[in-house]
Structure formats: C-alpha cells, structure tokens
C-alpha cells in the first residue's frame, strides 16, 4: 500500500484497516505529490509540482514537500493507528448441553401445560450431550505486538437425544439445539517461526434455541424454547503460516458458563499485513 504524509480519510481508514491513507490514492499514497517528471530518463509518474494533501479536519496543504506542509508531518506511515488486522473463519465441531439452562414455555396437548426446566430432580435416560457442528467468523486487530482485540460471531447446530424431564404428566426431552453466539475477543498471539500460538478469551452472549419434544401418553408435540446466557470461553490454539498473508490453525475451547461444552475450531485466517509484521529488519535505533 502506497502511503504518504497526508492525514487519513476516516472512512477509508476504517475500510482498509490501514494506518494512514492519503488523499490522492485510495490506499494511501499513490503519488500524493505527483511525481516530478523527468529524471535522467523520464519519469513515468505524472506532472511536475506538488499536489495537495489534506487532513480529516479540513486542513489542506498546497504541497507535500517535507517542511512546507501545514497539515501533516513526515512519517505518518510509521505511526499506525491500527495495528495489523486479521479475519478468520472456521468450521467448528464439539459438544454442548442444555442441562442447567432455564427453559420455560407452554405446550398444548389436551390442554395447555406450562413447563419450566430444569425440574428437580431431572430424570435422565440418555447422556445429556449434543454433538455440535457450525461455522464462525472473527475479526481482530493488534493493539500491541502480541495483544489483540476483536469481535466474534458463531453459529452451530446440535442434535441428539437430550435429557428427559418429568413435568407433571409431561415427559419433556430436548431433541436438538441451535446456538448463536456474539462475543468480544481478547487474546495473545506469540510467534514461533512459521507458527503462532494463540490464546483467545471470548466474552459475550450465547443464545440457544432448544427443540423440545413433549409427550403425554401417546400424544407427542414439539415446542421451541430460547435461552440466553453469558458466554465466557477461553481458547488456545496454534496457527501455521501457509503464505505471508494466510494462516491456518486449530483452536480448542470451552464455554465455562455452559456444562459439557467443548468447541474445536479449524479455520483459516487472512492477515492485512504479512506475518503481522512480526519481524523488523534493518535496525537503526
């Protein structure tokens, strides 16, 4: 990305996640001052004389010559507002459970029955565990060399025979679940050559839709119940750089707010800077 001195346009900056885009070029730079015309051969760059650069405050420079600008200073390309960013998508698998979730509603057989789960004691006839499969995406930005912050959202489906509960004359059995999760991410990334060890903590909300089968005698009905609960899921994993811009990895985590929860995410991550600029060459300072 070509960069130069001018102060960034905010929208462009947010769009690109780049540090200092410039007026003359969508990605910050282009020829903010045009190129000067001929060198010993002829320059391919355009017209002589500086064009202007401007800042988001509306200040406009008539030139981009260092020392003669009013709105901008040299080296803004070195002062990144955002660090490297990365976007991940992953397929997930694992287990989950609805035990302990508070589910309530009505079901109609010969008459309307209220139900409230969990009841005590639960009568379990099968292990209370669903096999889960899903998809998730995550965007994070580095705020220091190793610390990253971001957002995460995921979707997962689960099926299996859940626990049965006896509520009066009703036998309730959870049959399948759909989970939607949205969370903030805070984590650490530690480069190890072409590998990267990551630990993330997801803090957010998980909504679970449970399909419940209600049986009264020979009458069977299906009802849906929603549960929302906090999500606190630490994860650890490892990424392997497969190109300067892409890494692939695996993470394992468990939502501490949910019983019997285990998530394994296998995914690919795109990086806005190669290898997250983990290295520096040509040390001058």
């Amino acid at each position, binding site marked *: 990305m070509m960069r130069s001195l001018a102060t960034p346009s905010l929208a462009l900056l947010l769009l690109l996640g780049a540090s200092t885009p410039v007026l003359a070029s969508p*990605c910050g730079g282009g020829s903010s*001052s045009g190129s000067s015309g001929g060198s010993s051969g002829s320059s391919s760059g355009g017209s002589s004389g500086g064009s202007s650069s401007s800042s988001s405050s509306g200040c406009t420079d008539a030139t981009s*010559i260092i020392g003669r600008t009013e709105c901008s200073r040299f080296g803004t390309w070195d002062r990144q507002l955002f660090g490297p960013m990365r976007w991940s998508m992953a397929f997930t698998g694992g287990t989950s459970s609805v035990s302990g979730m508070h589910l309530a509603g009505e079901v109609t057989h010969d008459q309307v029955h209220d139900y409230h789960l969990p009841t005590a004691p639960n009568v379990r006839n099968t292990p209370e565990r669903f096999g889960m499969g899903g998809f998730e995406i995550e965007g994070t930005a580095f705020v220091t060399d190793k610390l990253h912050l971001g957002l995460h959202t995921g979707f997962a489906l689960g099926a299996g025979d859940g626990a049965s509960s006896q509520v009066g004359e009703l036998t309730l059995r959870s049959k399948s679940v759909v989970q939607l999760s949205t969370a903030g991410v805070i984590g650490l990334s530690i480069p190890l050559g072409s590998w990267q060890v990551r630990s993330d903590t997801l803090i957010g909300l998980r909504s679970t839709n449970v399909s419940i089968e209600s049986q009264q005698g020979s009458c069977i009905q299906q009802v849906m119940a929603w549960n929302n609960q906090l999500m606190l899921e630490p994860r650890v994993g490892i990424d392997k750089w497969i190109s300067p811009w892409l890494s692939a990895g695996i993470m394992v985590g468990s939502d501490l707010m949910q019983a019997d929860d285990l998530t394994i995410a296998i995914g690919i991550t795109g990086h806005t800077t190669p*290898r997250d600029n983990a290295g520096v060459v040509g040390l001058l300072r």
Partner: protein
Amino acid sequence: MPRLRLLASIALLVMPLAACAPYRAGSFQTGLTRFPEQRTSRGCLDIGLAAAYDSEAEGPVLDVYLGNRCDESVWVDLSALQVNAQLSTGERIFVGLYDPRAELQPALLGGRESVMERIELEAPTDSVVLCAYLDALSAAASAGPEQVLCAEVAGA
C-alpha cells in the same frame, strides 16, 4: 454504450482495489503508481528517484519512492540521505535536506508497503543532476558496494 458503462463500472471497482494491493517485490509499482525510471533494489528496499523543481520550493525537490520487498518491517532513515548536486557549471557539491522542523526521523516501513516522500534540497537553483547515496537510507539496504542513484532535475 451499456457496455462502456459496464466497463467503466468495473474499472471504478477494480482500480481502487489495485491501489490497495500490497507492494510486490521488484515491481517498482504500487497500485496505479509507477516508480520513476531511476530505480534500484537494495536488500529489502526497492528504491526509485526523481528530481524536479517545484513552485512551492526554493530549491530542487527529490521524490524518493520506497517499496519494501520483505514481509518484515524495515527501518528507513531519510534524514541520513546524502545528496550530491551537479550544477550547470559542472561543479559537484553535497547539499543538505530542507527540514526546518526536524521532521525527518528514522521510520518503520511495514512489510510489503511502499511510500513516496518529496524532499526539498538546500541546493542552488542551477542544479541539473541530483545523486543520492543510498547506503545510509537503511541498514537493510547497505549490503554490497556503495550505491548511488542519480536523476536529472526536470525543468532545469
């Protein structure tokens, strides 16, 4: 006409994306901007140089194009750039960089990023050729014999 409109729309969509592309080693081009013809590669840096007179400047200006060939960041110190001017008389003198606010400092050029800076020189207005000694520009560019890049001053 509809086809033209379609092509124009595609161009409008693609051109900004091309400009956003990371710098490709040895391409001497970033997005839609090409480096000047006076160019060389030193270590992690692709370097291009052009010189001209600018109505906003008292002396000639030097356009320094830098592209980082590496995935890693590179320290670049433009303040250490040494420039030699050849005058119309044939005389050669070392000239200083115009930097009244002492802005020029070592700065990190990110991996696969590129930048162009326009630097005014404290040089006579009859300068016809400017030569920059590249070794001091970056430790990442100092491998090998000393390298000098010269550009005729456009408009001289």
